[in-house]
């Protein structure tokens, strides 16, 4: 077993153990932290497909995260008020939310991606950022769903066999989704599709010259990436019982990139390591100083300037590719 794989299992085991240890030690709040870690790791795993494998630096994934959040909020609100959505009576069901989140984010990603992917480099970064801002402004001016106030979820959507109001049940659902997300990432990475995507990141002209169009490969990667991040966004809103416009705002996009870089770009365990460290840092710095973002910024600068490769890079060594 490679060190990277070992590290992945170790991190996942630690994350899984956290809520149980927290319960045993009498710090039930840590279950919420662990859930937050799992959800952010899932969101970053989605982004990692576009950014890590495809080299597509999307600074707009907050849009997909937020779309997921609003899907959860909208379904919960309609179900609560017994108000039909698009003419249908809908149950307050998480799987339905995930489906809606993934489909709507996928649709938005297909449209914005088709435009953004005609460009590359800095243009791509700026355009994805601009489109995310567009979705943000759309959401805050959409009064029917809360506008600038966002959308509260009075009662979490349900999941068969689980009580989503119980923190540990919610954690288990988030953790299972994270595993599913990691599985998708891993399969994509080793598949033919992943080979083409990864190759196009390194040498676009060569990939075209052997007969593979980079554009559709990247577009599909972008859409899949958005869908996974959207499901994470839905869970994030469920956890906080609130679909906030801040989920759609640009700092969230930055945060998702930060998670990946902290952990290690393109690595399976990168987002997991990054999310665990980030949430711990946020919590720990936050308990020491009100100005924790200042020190987070400094830490981040240090990582970018001096510790490239992230945590996984430090532990598992340089990336190897077959």
């Amino acid at each position, binding site marked *: 077993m490679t060190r990277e794989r070992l590290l992945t299992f170790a991190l996942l085991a630690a994350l899984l153990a956290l809520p149980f240890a927290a319960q045993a030690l009498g710090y039930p709040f840590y279950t919420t932290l662990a859930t937050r870690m799992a959800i952010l790791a899932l969101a970053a795993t989605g982004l990692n497909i576009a950014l890590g494998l495809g080299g597509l630096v999307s600074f707009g994934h907050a849009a997909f995260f937020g779309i997921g959040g609003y899907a959860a909020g909208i379904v919960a609100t309609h179900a609560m008020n017994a108000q039909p959505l698009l003419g249908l009576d809908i149950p307050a069901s998480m799987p339905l939310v995930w489906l809606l989140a993934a489909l709507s984010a996928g649709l938005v990603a297909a449209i914005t991606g088709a435009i953004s992917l005609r460009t590359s480099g*800095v243009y791509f970064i700026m355009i994805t950022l601009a489109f995310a801002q567009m979705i943000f402004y759309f959401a805050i*001016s959409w009064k029917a769903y809360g506008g600038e106030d966002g959308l509260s979820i009075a009662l979490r959507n349900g999941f068969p066999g689980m009580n989503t109001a119980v923190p540990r049940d919610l954690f288990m659902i988030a953790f299972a989704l994270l595993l599913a997300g990691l599985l998708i990432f891993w399969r994509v990475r080793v598949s033919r599709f992943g080979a083409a995507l990864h190759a196009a990141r390194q040498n676009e002209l060569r990939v075209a010259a052997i007969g593979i169009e980079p554009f559709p490969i990247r577009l599909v990667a972008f859409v899949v990436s958005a869908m996974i991040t959207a499901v994470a966004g839905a869970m994030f809103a469920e956890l906080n019982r609130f679909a906030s416009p801040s989920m759609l705002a640009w700092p969230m996009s930055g945060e998702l990139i930060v998670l990946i870089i902290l952990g290690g770009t393109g690595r399976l365990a990168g987002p997991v390591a990054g999310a665990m460290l980030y949430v711990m840092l946020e919590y720990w710095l936050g308990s020491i100083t009100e100005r924790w973002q200042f020190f987070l910024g400094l830490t981040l*600068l240090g990582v970018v300037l001096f510790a490239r490769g992230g945590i996984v890079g430090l532990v598992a060594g340089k990336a190897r590719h077959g």
Partner: protein
Amino acid sequence: MPTALIIEQLLNGLQLGVMLFLMAAGLTLIFGVMGLINLAHGSLYMVGAFACAAVAAWTGSFWLGLVASLAAAAAAGAIVEVTVIRRLYDRDHLDQVLATFALILVFSEGTRWLFGSFPLYLDIPPALTGAVALPGGVFYPVYRLAIILVGLAVAVGLWLLISRTRLGMRIRAGESDREMIGALGVDIRTLYTVVFALGAALAGLAGALVGALQSVQVGMGEPVLILAFVVIVIGGIGSIKGAFLGALLVGVVDTMGRIFLPQLLAALLGPAPAASLGGALSSMLIYIVMAGILAFRPRGLFAAGA
């Protein structure tokens, strides 16, 4: 009186446009010369606004505040360039994005530390209060007119600087060929610091000027930064001309759209659906324009080599 309204909104659009130009010019220069994408440019805008508000409150003079805003933003830019940015020129865009994102966190939280969480207010200088009558019976605020004039003056000055001066020649050389300016015997490190500080000063000036129209607060820079990105994407990265025309286009389209699109929708769909749709749609308008332009010109209207 629709003509008056149109003129007034056109001027508002122009005013937003020249402000965006001050931001976009620095961004596009920094990208053109150093190949760097700087997310922290909005922070320099904020630094300018805070410096102006603080000095104006302390001395009672808006004009001293304005000088302070230029000095503070240029100094902040130079310091950041020397300590951080300089290490990023050879890195990929991802590292640049991340490091300058980290700088935003440091700047924003640092400013909150120094000035607290409450917004500051900056008064329009007495000499520029009031309104003037324009042809067509429009009364338009003097201060906003002054902003437009300042913006146009900066645009002309920048054009003269780049086309007529030694510094401008070096900047143009740096854009086309980095090795060449080394061969010309130019100290590249100093040139880069100067260009970065110049861009920072323009952002700081914009922040200070807008600070008197809105409140001065942490986080004021980033929405403007993102609009400036839209401007650059439309105009073509690295092109000052593109930044200027793109800025005016975005300023006018955004301002006019917010006023006239809801009215247009109301005429088409009736008042009730227009009220809910109009706001949402007009806030998306410039992004739709951007997408439309990109569909035909993926590298913007005036990209070098397009």
